[in-house]
């Protein structure tokens, strides 16, 4: 059967393999960072500050301004970064997409309510939101994640709503309605799969964005303990050393790049596998 084989070959596509391998390797390395580099991420060695990479086998990626092993920190740094990156994006997607679906599908009052709320949210500069947010709820990792969700759901909501507005006039949605399919099923079974493409794109990209944002919150007081390594934090620390010690920021940047690359490959694959029309065209 033609479709069988093409579906199989899709699983075997380069995108999927590469994406999975990257993501799995990164996640495993991060999960087992303690085993790979016991205590290495925190060990300060003021005698070996800013050692160059690829010269000392003890520090293959060089050391940071406190003489810590950049490699160990990059690996360990994924814990916070991935946690924040993933959870905040997932939270924002779930909430935002839901709101967008409701606003776009029901229109009228709900649309007005959700979208004006979105306007409110959009008009609020991020730092202001962050500062007032901490002032009210205090700073912690959970709150960082909540803050990111609060500040980002609107993107998804508006994106989804826009697409729903066109889709809901399409005949296949009408025919689902004609059958008597319940609203929530129309929303989740028919609208969602047909508009998820851009959402997946935005989602995979926002993971990177949020990993970076997490660090920028540090100086607002929402950040976490600087001894706990995170990619964004390392990049921020490396800021003053850009001209003198590039490796401090380039390696965490590469880590983010590879993660996002892996995610995007998976995201593209997911998008493609949700889109049957592209299937035979390869």
């Amino acid at each position, binding site marked *: 059967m033609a479709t069988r084989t093409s579906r199989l070959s899709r699983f075997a596509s380069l995108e999927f393999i590469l994406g999975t391998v990257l993501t799995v390797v990164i996640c495993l390395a991060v999960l087992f960072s303690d085993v790979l580099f016991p205590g290495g991420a925190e060990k*300060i060695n*003021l005698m070996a500050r800013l050692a160059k990479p690829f010269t000392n086998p003890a520090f293959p990626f060089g050391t940071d301004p406190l003489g810590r092993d950049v490699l160990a920190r990059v690996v360990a740094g994924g814990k916070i970064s991935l946690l924040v990156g993933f959870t905040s994006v997932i939270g924002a997607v779930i909430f935002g997409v839901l709101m967008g679906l409701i606003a776009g599908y029901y229109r009228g009052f709900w649309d007005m309510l959700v979208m004006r709320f979105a306007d409110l949210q959009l008009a609020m500069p991020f730092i202001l939101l962050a500062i007032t947010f901490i*002032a009210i709820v205090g700073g912690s990792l959970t709150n960082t994640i909540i803050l990111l969700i609060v500040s980002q759901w609107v993107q998804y909501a508006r994106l989804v709503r826009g697409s729903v507005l066109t889709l809901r006039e399409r005949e296949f949605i009408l025919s689902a309605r004609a059958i008597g399919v319940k609203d929530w099923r129309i929303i989740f079974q028919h609208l969602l799969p047909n508009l998820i493409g851009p959402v997946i794109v935005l989602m995979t990209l926002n993971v990177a964005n949020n990993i970076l944002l997490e660090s920028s919150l540090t*100086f607002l*007081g929402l950040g976490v303990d*600087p*001894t706990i390594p995170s990619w964004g934090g390392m990049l921020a*620390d490396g800021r003053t050393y850009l001209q*003198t010690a590039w490796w401090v920021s380039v390696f965490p940047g590469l880590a983010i790049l590879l993660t996002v690359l892996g995610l995007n490959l998976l995201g593209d694959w997911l998008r493609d596998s949700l889109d049957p029309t592209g299937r035979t065209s390869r």
Partner: protein
Amino acid sequence: AGKMTISTPQDPGSWDPVDTFLTQWAAVSTNIFDGLTYRGPDLKVVPGLAESWEELDEGKRLRFKLRQGVKFHDGEDFNAAAVKFTFERLLGDQGAKGPQRSNYTAIDSVEIVDDYTVDLKLKAPDPVLLTKLAGYGAMIVPPKYIAEKGEDNFNTNPVGTGAFKFVSYQPKVNIKLEANTDYWGGAPKLSEVEYRFIAEPATAVAELQAGRVDLVIPPTIPIGMIPVIEGDSKLEIVSVPGPTVDALRFNTRDGITADVNVRKAIIMAVDRATIVQSILAGQASEIVSFQSALSFGYDADLKALPYDPEGAKKLLAAAGVKAGTTLQIDIRGNDATMNEVAQVISSYLSMVGITATIKPYETNVITNDIIPQGKTGAMFQQKWGGWTFDFDNTAYAMYHSGEKWNPYDKDEKMDKLLESQRPLTDRAEREKILKEVGAYAAERALELPLYNTNAIFGINKRVKGFIAPPDNRLKLNEVSVD
């Protein structure tokens, strides 16, 4: 002749002397305004617009002989009336709107003796007043100009007697000055000066590297970027000890740090010399009390607790602090240096069995809420830069009970010591008591003293005759550019 461009990290928003405490204000305004006295880079108080002065009434009256023939930039004469106007404005309604007034409350009234003689009548003697007259709120302002053009106009169109005249100001962008060729101290060598407000260190340094800025003033250049400037043959770093000191203070009321021996143990556990050498790249000096070596009241003989991890462990054991005890260090999140230092300290503490976590805060939150409300962890960062270079300014605020920055400690002896030195005009006597304050604070281990950071200037070598002021008060009349 020649133009010099200077990068300063902040726009104070108003050029009116009564409005602000920012050193970035002084970095500009020292060139526009003069005070009765002047304090240069050597920190000695010398005559300014007053040629001489004397103390009368046991220090409760100061009589100033004013310089003659001085004119404001708008052509108005400088005289006793201008001095009277200046201080009455500072202590009156206009001054009430700004923070500067609180520095000058010792002044009771201003009396004109003759056109060029003026008396400041004091409520009580203020030993630091002459220093204060050299800066900020005490800058002499033109009465007629202000009366004619109004107060609001003065904020953004300052007029003084200084070496440079105001030309233009664009908020958040720049302020431009030009030479005042009639300056009483002699015409400046530069014809124009432009200050650009550049908040981002990397940007300021890039502008310096690109040759579009001649001087970057503190607090801008982070330690980590010093090698960048040193590596550029056209540029150099000039650094002098500054007014700013950093310490991690203790919560002396609750938790393990309520015990003085624990506090001492923590101090002994940290190798500050290494921190200064490595993290601060030598751009700072260790301190023993919460003041710099330049400060009045500094005690060169006071000895710090030695770096002694073994001793620290013993003290901790004796105090019953178990290995693995945790404590929290609160710091300002945007202070990159302290970020690193705190991490190193945390690692030193871990060697004596204390697990320290670090909690960064937004600056305003920590200074306005966390510290005053006593919501800090066991240790918290305090950064202080008394521009008067007088230990009283620091010590009173930090150690006197009930003060905003002193949420935890109450000590009668300390309060008495602090109060007793305030009215003294006898410098030696006061200095003795201030040294005592410093020693007593060290004995009680009220803080983990860290370092006094240098004021770091990045400068283009084409600038000649620049002497780095520790207090950021640039006076550019002797400076020239190639």
